């Protein structure tokens, strides 16, 4: 008798707890992320996948966010694509079909986006993808592709950061010849196709060479480029290659002047004594910004506390930070739209608003992000000049 009473009591407790559990589940917004956290091209994905967990942690520790009368917490499902498009397709399928995720961050790699695109398109209107990949530019803003928003400045066009970068180069260095050296893949080809006309429009002669992914010894291609006698070498696009290109170019006496629109200040700082000029696009020069901007200071401190390591100033905290902003930007859009489920309403709200986080983020007619950035100009010995640009 005593034991059956205990059984009833336990059952009653369980019954009382179940509705609470159910309501706790409904008050969660799932965020997915598909980025290359590992692998040879992981620099962008790895860095961007660090920003989102910090924001999610902050939001949840603050008790969540309110939309209407309901308080929501965030659940992040971050998956490592390793830069493998097939892996990414399986992961996206899991996120959309099993986990029922409606908001996906990533990918930053073009080859990954191009492969997952046909599958992702089937879910148009049912989820939002916030990806930074260069080739997303070709798809975003087209009818039937409303699911994707590109979270990065585009290079060309009136507000294009690449145009502003080349203008800066022309203004400060008056180059006649520029040699471009990119990885032989989707991202590299797009860069070549995009920048040739930009340079040509300014009367600059170009030469373009592509290297095999995973290349470590760049001497042959640099020797070939040196025959062209370029004023600037414009290499891309990830630090994994840039460290070697910059060092070998300086050591082999091929070129000591560099112009970059992808990558970080790291390769320049590492070779600061040998280079003559290193002009690089960075979304934000964190070293300077953290002294002046409280939001940046907060992020740097949060990063150090969350990961228990130093902030990677020389790397691409750029991506991690922009994804950090994107979490808050998405929440702001949900709150303004008054829903966490109506993807179309949230998308429309997002595209029409301006979010002021670490960056001032808005979107152009093409559904691509427009945000302020810095041009870092390193000179021999590491002397640094920073120019802030508002597109």
């Amino acid at each position, binding site marked *: 008798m005593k034991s059956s009473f205990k059984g009833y009591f336990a059952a009653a407790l369980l019954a009382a707890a179940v509705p609470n559990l159910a309501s706790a589940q409904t008050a969660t917004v799932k965020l997915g992320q598909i980025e290359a*956290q*590992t*692998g*040879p091209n*992981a*620099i962008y994905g*790895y860095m961007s996948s660090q920003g989102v967990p910090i924001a999610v942690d902050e939001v949840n520790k603050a008790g969540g966010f309110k939309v209407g009368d309901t308080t929501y917490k965030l659940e992040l499902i971050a998956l490592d694509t390793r830069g493998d498009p097939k892996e990414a397709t399986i992961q996206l399928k899991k996120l959309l079909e099993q986990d029922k995720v409606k908001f996906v961050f990533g990918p930053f790699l073009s080859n990954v986006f191009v492969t997952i695109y046909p599958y992702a398109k089937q879910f148009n209107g049912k989820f939002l993808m916030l990806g930074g990949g260069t080739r997303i530019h070709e798809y975003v803003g087209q009818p039937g592709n409303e699911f994707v928003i590109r979270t990065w400045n585009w290079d060309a066009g009136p507000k294009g950061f690449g145009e502003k970068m080349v203008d800066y180069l022309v203004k400060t260095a008056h180059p006649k010849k520029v040699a471009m050296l990119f990885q*032989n893949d989707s991202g590299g080809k797009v860069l070549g196709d995009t920048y040739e006309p930009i340079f040509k429009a300014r009367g600059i002669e170009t030469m373009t*060479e*592509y*290297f*095999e992914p*995973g*290349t*470590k*010894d760049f*001497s*042959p*291609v640099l*020797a*070939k480029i*040196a*025959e062209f006698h370029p004023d600037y070498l414009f290499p891309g696009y990830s*630090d*994994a290659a840039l*460290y*070697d290109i910059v*060092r*070998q170019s300086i*050591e*082999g*006496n091929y070129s000591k002047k560099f112009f970059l629109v992808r990558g970080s200040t*790291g*390769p320049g700082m*590492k070779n600061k004594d040998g280079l003559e000029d290193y002009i690089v696009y960075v979304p934000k020069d964190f070293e300077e910004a953290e002294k002046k901007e409280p939001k940046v200071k907060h992020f740097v401190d949060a990063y150090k506390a969350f990961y228990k390591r130093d902030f*990677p100033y020389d*790397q691409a905290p750029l991506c991690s930070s922009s994804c950090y902003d994107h979490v808050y930007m998405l929440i702001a859009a949900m709150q303004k739209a008054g829903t966490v489920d109506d993807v179309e309403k949230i998308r429309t709200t997002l595209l029409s608003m301006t979010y002021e986080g670490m960056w001032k983020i808005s979107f152009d007619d093409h559904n691509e992000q427009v945000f302020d950035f810095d041009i870092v100009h390193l000179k021999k010995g590491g002397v640094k000049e920073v120019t802030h640009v508002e597109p």
Partner: protein
Amino acid sequence: MTQVVVGQILNGIILGSLYGIIALGVTMTFGITGIVNFALGQFMMIGAYATWYFTDLAMLPFPVAVVLAVALAAVAGLIADQALFRFTRNNLVNGLLVSIGLISVMESGALLLFTTTPKNMDIVIAGSWSLGAITLPRMKVVAFLLLVAVIGLTWLGLSRAWLGRATRAYAQNPEAAMLMGVPTKLLQTGVVVYSCALAGFGGALYASLFSLEPSLGGLFILKGVEAAILAGVGNLLGALAGGVILGVTESVGSLYLPSAFRDAYGLVFLVAILLFRPAGLFGSQK
């Protein structure tokens, strides 16, 4: 243009010696244990990261860092041998599967420890030597000399010392070597450990030339296997020659043909050679 070509031939020779040291490890391990240790690239990665760590973070002098890195790679090789490879002796498929599994484990471990952010070691020997239009970074030349010296000493050791002769005897006829009192188990373990140490040494010099990522071993083991096959598996000095031929083919090929397909030039050359000499350039045709 002639000077550019000469410069790239020299560059190819230097790079090829790095392929050669991995090829030497591949050819020795295969000859004695009957397995192709594809994880040698990861032992190279251990050597590279260890050198970077000891030099840039622990602030030890480069030569000390190299010695420690080689020792670490050797210890890792000993652990791998005793825990895994000794159960796969003379079983090509099992050995291959174990080494492939080991690649995943070691690469994941490196990712966990060092992340994908490239590590770029401080320059050990700065500057270049120039001869006309040919410029060669000093560190590259020093690395080449060290690699050739180690490969040469290995060859000398194997052809002159008792242990080396025992090793070669075992490779030619294991049963006869055993009957002559060659400690076969110890020999097999020794060869695995030594080839891992060689890979670690290659990695230590790699760290002084190129940036480091956890996946660096994958590319170099492929080149090492290519070089070993090109030379003819089992030929020790041929391993160096195979590496050098591969390096020169890639470097000069990239000058005249698109750099985007650099790896293919070495492979095409390898296939062409194997068509005429199936046992490799220096391998026995019998």
